[in-house]
């Protein structure tokens, strides 16, 4: 049964890791703007540029 304590201990370490990640994320302001990044990631400079050069 002692294995239980090791398991619980390691699960805590893991969970605390996630908690720290969460706090870090909030502090960093990553959830202040939940819209702009979703648009920003779709801008792809390289490929769009090529198409435009052909057009112009």
């Amino acid at each position, binding site marked *: *049964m002692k294995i*239980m*304590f090791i398991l*619980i201990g390691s*699960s*805590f370490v893991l*969970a*605390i890791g*996630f*908690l720290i990640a*969460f*706090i870090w994320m*909030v*502090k960093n302001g990553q*959830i*202040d*703007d*939940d*819209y*702009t990044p979703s*648009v*920003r990631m*779709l*801008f792809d*400079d390289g490929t*769009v*540029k090529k*198409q*435009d*050069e052909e*057009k*112009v």
Partner: protein
Amino acid sequence: MIETLNKNTKTTCYHCGDFCAEETLVLNDKTFCCNGCKNVFMLLSENNLTSYYSIEKNPGKSLKQSIGNKYAYLDDTNIQSKLISYIDHKVARLQFQIPNIHCSSCIYLLENLYKINNAVVGVRVNFLKKTANIVYDVNKMSLRQLVELLASIGYEPSFTMNDINQEKPKNINRKLLFQIGVAGFCFGNIMMISFPEYFGLDNTTRHYLSSAFGYINLALSIPVFFYSGQDYLISAYKGLRKKLITIDVPLALGLVVLFVRNFYEILTRTGLGYCDTLAGLVFFLLIGKWFQQKTYDSLSFERDYKSYFPISVIKINADNQTTTVAIDKLKIGDRILIRNNEIIPADSILLKGKANIDFSFVSGEKEPIAKELGEIIFAGGKQTNGNIELEVKKLTEQSYLTQLWNNDIFAKDNASKVETFQTKVSKYFTVALLAIAISSAIYWAVYDSSKIIGAFTAVLIIACPCALALSSPFALGNAMRNLGRKKFYLKSANVVENIANMDTIVFDKTGTITQSNESQIEFIGNPLTQLQKELIFSVTQNSIHPLSKQIAQHLNISSAIILNSFDEITGKGIKANVGGNDVEVGSAKFLNILENESNALNTRIYIKINRENVGCFVIKHAYRTGLKQVINQLATQFKLHLLSGDNEQEKTFLQTVFPTSSELLFKQNPADKLMYINTLQGNQQKVIMVGDGLNDAGALKTANVGISLSEDTSSFSPSSDVIMDAANFELLPKYLQYCKNTMKVIYVSFCLSLLYNIIGLSYAVSGTLSPVIAAILMPISSVTVIGFTSISTYLLARKMK
């Protein structure tokens, strides 16, 4: 390559999507409505940024206004230092408010600004707040050049007096999120550890694990109680000191009892404790709080006159040189230059130029007012006729208009105007709860004294009004989001409840029930010849009737012909002889003309020249579409009033629109409006004020609920509880009805949560509440209430179309 097309073809601008009305410019098979738009396109294509146009269709904004010297004031180091948030010898960083940010293309273009000008180091757009954080190289570019660059591509930052006078808003409060994080973490882990107990352990493992699990649970519940739950404890304590019983009191009571009992049971090994219930309770409550805290970042509900005035003005020095000064640096006696479409920043005297001031936003008068040299012009008006020179007589903050803000109403914070349903209920709830707890304790004192503490604490734990505390935040939060989707933006979720309690609506006229653009005049009949125009002008110019004045203004002719005779019959029309021609102007009845179509929303003025009918002028009252239906629907539930800053010219028409019981008042100044609302409230009426301009600011603030209508939600609107898109004026009765329905949802969900409480109490009073039952009941009741409120508010919102 560039040519101008005929204007008859209806082409739209590739850049801004407007119809090309005046001219059409063509470049690379693309059409543009003006040089501004075309230049932006050229600039973007030179810099390989044309994907701007592929992300959204016609993403630009029309650029018909030129920039000129507009931003000269940004060279002033004093103003610069107030705008820039960080500067060193290399770069400066600052945040702009850019109202024109409206689509994905905007983000793309602004964030790629460095490709157009390499002095820009980086741009970060926050779409929801409509802000751009810009870092630029101070050695390569000045602040003014940066702003001019932004303006030249159509993203003009907006600067107001507020930006330099007020402190930047504090950092966003993230404490709630941390609290939720901690509570969620502890809740999850406590659940995991408690589960084996609930499913049953055999004796040997129990011996091993049980006490260890108990201690871990206790350790986890400490941060939940002292950190995540602290706001409830503090607010209950504060409330009790003020002798107020809010919903936080029974909540805090439940939390404290849970916490203490956990410690007792686990340390004495008499039970398992209710750690999971405690953590779950706090977690759900915080989620509810977070849900209710939705705000519309890009809208501002707290604006005063400071955000209406520009931040600077052109001052003319003694040597006739002009400099730009900040408005708060203006002194009495300064000479200032106001250009077309600029706002007069302070009460001043006209020295030079033709002043034609539009006060519609300030006083509600819809016609621009011409001012003579030497006349005083009040701050807030907008010059509409070329440049004028003024001498400042009073400082901005002491001017006629801004004095309104010295009224007490702007000083006090009247956040909690009405007692909420939740507060009302929680009083009775707390009393009943304590009564049940005490009587069950007394009962057990008589029959089985070992169960006294157990039953007493179990009642307080199980009846902890978690579901009750969640029903309001979720219903109101949902309602607020649903209304926001229909462009009815609330300052906070509690406004929904306030609206549901109202019984009186006061409307402003100009800009609220009328469209802010001027009323339109149209001539129906064969096109008038120049002579006919001159004849009509000469007659109407001599009349003081507002309609004649409007016609004269519409014809816009400089020379009048001398009249031989002039006879005006009040309320009917004019008969006159002009240079040998008989001219009659008036209603159809007056001129004996048969009217084939009648339209209550238009006024028709017929013209006869030499006894021949030449046609009629149609003056469209620029009332909002659906006004009559809106008023009719509202009249069934509300008392209606109208306060207008304008003259009584349209009184007769408005009487046909409003029910006979409503009060219609004209020539009301801003202070009158404020007083009127106060009087109504003195008669125990609960008032919604619907207004738009600065002149309504006092009334909007005094009213129980202030709704400000705005043609463009990103532009200025006075401080209010609700900002509403003027285009959706027709939906007003539905919005109000939706708020009332939301309250009904809260009542039902309150009954639901009571039902769960009764079930739980039946276990608690009998002294048989096991941790398992508590751990099941609490989340189930919360989830039911959340589910019920979310679904029903959503379904109700679908009816609102």
